[in-house]
């Protein structure tokens, strides 16, 4: 049960930034455009960030990672559920690494 000063600082800053954004929306509610470029931009951020996160991981991985990513995607599309998709990906990468 320890926390390093660096981790504590990171967590507190993460928390402050997140809370400021949550409260900020309420404060500027009447001035915020509900559609148009700004709204579309905010809507697209989380997906683009996740795509940016996984692209190098898959591109720099080998056959096992690429195949397991495909299996993860298939299981997610079939089940619409995070846990089975993650589990299938992990099991797939484990088995393929054993085989190749």
């Amino acid at each position, binding site marked *: 049960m320890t926390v390093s000063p*660096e981790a504590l600082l990171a967590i507190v800053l993460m928390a402050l*930034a997140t809370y400021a954004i949550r*409260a900020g929306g*309420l404060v500027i509610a009447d001035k915020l455009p509900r559609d148009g470029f700004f709204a579309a931009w905010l809507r697209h951020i*989380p997906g683009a*960030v996740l795509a940016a996160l996984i692209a*190098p991981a898959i591109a720099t991985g080998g056959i096992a990672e690429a195949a397991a*990513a495909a299996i993860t995607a298939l299981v997610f599309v079939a089940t619409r559920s995070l846990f089975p998709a993650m589990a299938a990906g992990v099991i797939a990468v484990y088995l393929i690494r054993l085989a190749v």
Partner: protein
Amino acid sequence: MSRRQNGSALDELARGARLCLPVCVSVAAYGLVWGVLAGQAGLSVLEVLLMSGLVFAGSSQFVALDLWTSNPAALPIAAIVVAVAVVNLRYVMLTATLRPLFPGRLGPGAFAAMFAATDENWALTVGEMKRGPTSPAFLVGSGLAIYLAWLGATLVGRLAGAAIDDPAAYGLDFAFTATFLALLLGMWRGKADLVPWLVGAAAALVAARLIEGNWYIIIGGLVGSLAGAFLETRSRRDRLA
């Protein structure tokens, strides 16, 4: 209808929490995965409790884990905070739509309630607001239920994950990529998502080669989302013209 308007704040708090229970189950599953990954990333049990308890924003916490280092001296604090803020920027739109819950001047209660706003109970509360006058207590009650589910599940995940000694030997190093991929696919709303995702991925690949560190995540996210917004507003203008 009349029952809702006459209900006390406490009733509304409980009703929000009750209606949120099915959502809590999926939040807990997601939290369990986050907890296991947090252990792999080197977060202590206390750090897991602090992060889940103070930040309380799932997708940004997943992104933070990807940047986390088990060596505190190497922790890229600035990159983590910027990445978390960028992922959470969308909350501006969510909480702005909750403004009608608080008629008149914003008091301390309204600001306190914002801590409880998440994607899930925001959707639930906006649904209630469409049906009639809604109490802020509904938002807070549903938020508290999600808060407890998130905090509890991430803690259990962290404790259970500690039993695994060598994650890479079981393919668990791939759990990050698999989880992010599933999270991403879950965000699919239509063809308009394709461009920001592909541009974001391409920009990240280029940035990862050119720039030291983990800034490729933020660069890819910003470039991809701007491309998506640009294309979306342009195609709408074309249709109108």
